[in-house]
C-alpha cells in the first residue's frame, strides 16, 4: 500500500478510535453525576 493509503487508513482509524474512547471515558468515568435528575 502506498504512503497515501496508509495515511488515509491510519488517520481514519485514529480519529474514530480516539473519538470513541474519549466519549466512553467521559460517560463512564467523568461527570457521571452531572446533569442527572433524581427520581
Amino acid at each position, binding site marked *: *500500500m*502506498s504512503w*497515501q*493509503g*496508509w495515511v*488515509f*487508513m491510519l488517520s*481514519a*482509524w485514529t480519529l*474514530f*478510535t480516539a*473519538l*470513541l474512547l*474519549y*466519549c*466512553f471515558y*467521559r*460517560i*463512564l468515568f467523568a*461527570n*457521571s453525576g*452531572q*446533569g*442527572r*435528575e433524581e*427520581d
Partner: protein
Amino acid sequence: MASNGETREHWGTRIGLVLAMAGNAIGLGNFLRFPGQAAANGGGAFLIPYFICLLLMAIPLMWLEWTQGRYGGVRGHGTTPAMFQLMWRHPIAKYLGVLGLFIPTLILFYYSYIGSWTLGFSIKTLLGQMPHVSQAQLHEGMTAEEISQTVLQPYSDFLGKYSGDTGSGYLLQPDAFTLGVFVVVYLLTLWLMARGVSGGIEALAKIAMPLLFLLAIGLVVRVFTLGHPVSPEYGVMEGIAFLWEPKWFVERDGKEVFVLLDSKTWLAAAGQVFFSLSLGMGAIQCYASYLRRKDDVTLTGLSTTASNSFAEVVLGASIALPAASAFFGVAAAQMIASKGSFYLGFVSMPAIFSFLPAGNILGFLWFLLLFFAAMTSVVAMCQPVIAFLEDEFGLSRRRAVAAMGVFWLIGVQFAIWVKGGIDVYDFWSGTFGPPLMALVEVIILMWIFGGEKVWQEMHEGALLRVPRFFYYCAKYVTPLFLLAILGTWFYENVIHALLTGELFTRPLEAAGLEVGWHIWAVRGFVILVFVLQVFAIWYAWNVRKSMQRAEVLPE
C-alpha cells in the same frame, strides 16, 4: 393519553442508553454496506466526502434529533407527529411528523426479515448445513467470473434457496426453516418490546453491543492473521490497500471523473452516513424521548456517532472485503463488492469460512455478529409505533406491542413472499424518506421553533459544550446539504426517469426485477400504510380535541 413526561418510562443507566442508541445505529450496513460503498467510490478518497457529510450533516442532525426527542419526551410524547406539533403550532405540523412513523415501519417490515436470515445462517453454519467447497478448487489466476461460477455459486444458490428466490415467477417460496426462524425473531422482539424500554431494549443492548464489538474485534484479528492462503499474490493487505488506497479518479458512464467532484460519490457518502446512523427516521427522537429533563444529549449523541463510525470504518472495513481479497484476489474482491451487501455477507463470507479450520465456529460467530447488529436495530424500528400508540391513544404497553405486532406481521408478508418486495420497501424508506424527514425536522427546529431556543434546549444538562460552528452548520449548511441530496434524488428518479420513460421501473429493473402486478401490490400496500398512519394522527388529535372540549365545558 399522556399529557406530561412524568409517567413515561426512562432509561435505567446512561451507558445503557448509549449502547441502545449505538445498537439502533449499528446494523448490517456497517459491516456489509460500508466496505462496498468505499470500494466503489474512490477507496480512501471516499473518506473525504464521508467525513464532510458526517461533520456538516450527520453530527448536527444527531444533536438536533436528540434534543427534539428529549423535548417531546418530557412533555409526554415520543414520536415526531406530536414533537413537530409542539415545536410548530400549525395544523400541518403533526401530519409532517407521519414520516417518523412511516419510515421505521417500512424498514421494520423488511429489515426484520433480513435480520432473521442472519440467525438462520448462523444456525445452519454451526450445524454444518452450509454448502462446502474445497479450497483445492481455488488457484491463482482464476478470473472473477470463474470464481463466481465455481467457488461462490453453491453459496449463491443456497442464499436463493433460503430466501425462496428459485423460480422465475413473481412470488418467492422460502422453506419452513426460513419462516420458522423469522417467527423466532418476531416473537423474541415482541417479548423484548413488551418488557419495556429499560427492561427490554436496554437489557438487550447491554448484552448484544459488548458482544458485537468483541466478536468483530475477534474476527478482525482472525482476518489479519490469514496470511496468503492461496497465493503469495493474494493477501489481506492487498484487500486493505484496495479499500484504502485513494483513487482520485473513478469511472462513471465510461468516463474518468475526479472523485471529489462526482455527485454519485457524494450521494453515496451521504446515503451511507444517513442509513448507518439511522438519521431522519424518527427512531433517535423516540429513544431520546425516554431521557429525563436534565439528561445530557450532546456527549451521548456524539458517542452514538463515534460508535457507529468506529464500527464501520475500523471494524466493518477490516473483515469481509480483506478476507475476500486473501482468498480470491483483489479483482474478484472488487467483483464481490460490486454485487452488493448480500453477496458480500451471505455468499462470499460463508465460502471463506468453509476454507478455514474451525470454519463452522467462525461462520457462526460472523452471522451471530450480524444478528446482534440487526436485532438492536429491529427493536429501534418497532419503538416509534409502540410509543405513538401509548402516548397518543393511551394504550398500555402490552396492547401497543400487540397492535404493532399484528401490523408488522401483515407488512412483512410482502417482504417474505413477493419478489422485489424488499426493494420497494427499501426504495421509499432507505433512499428517499430519511433525507426528506431530516430536511423537515431541521427546518422546524432551526427556522420555525428557533435556532437559539434549540441551542439553549440542547445545552440543558449538557456534558459537552458544542462549538458554535455547529449552530451555523445546522441552520444553514445542513438544510442546503439536504436540499442538494433531495434535488439530485428528484432529478435521477423523477425527471431523468420521466425523460427516459422509466418512472415506474427504474430502480427495480436496474436490480434485475420485473415490474408486474406484484410490485404494484407492494406499492399499493405502502400507500395504504401511509394513509392509515395519517388517519391515525388525525383520529388521535380529534379525540384529544373532543376530550379537551369536554373538560372545558362539563355538562
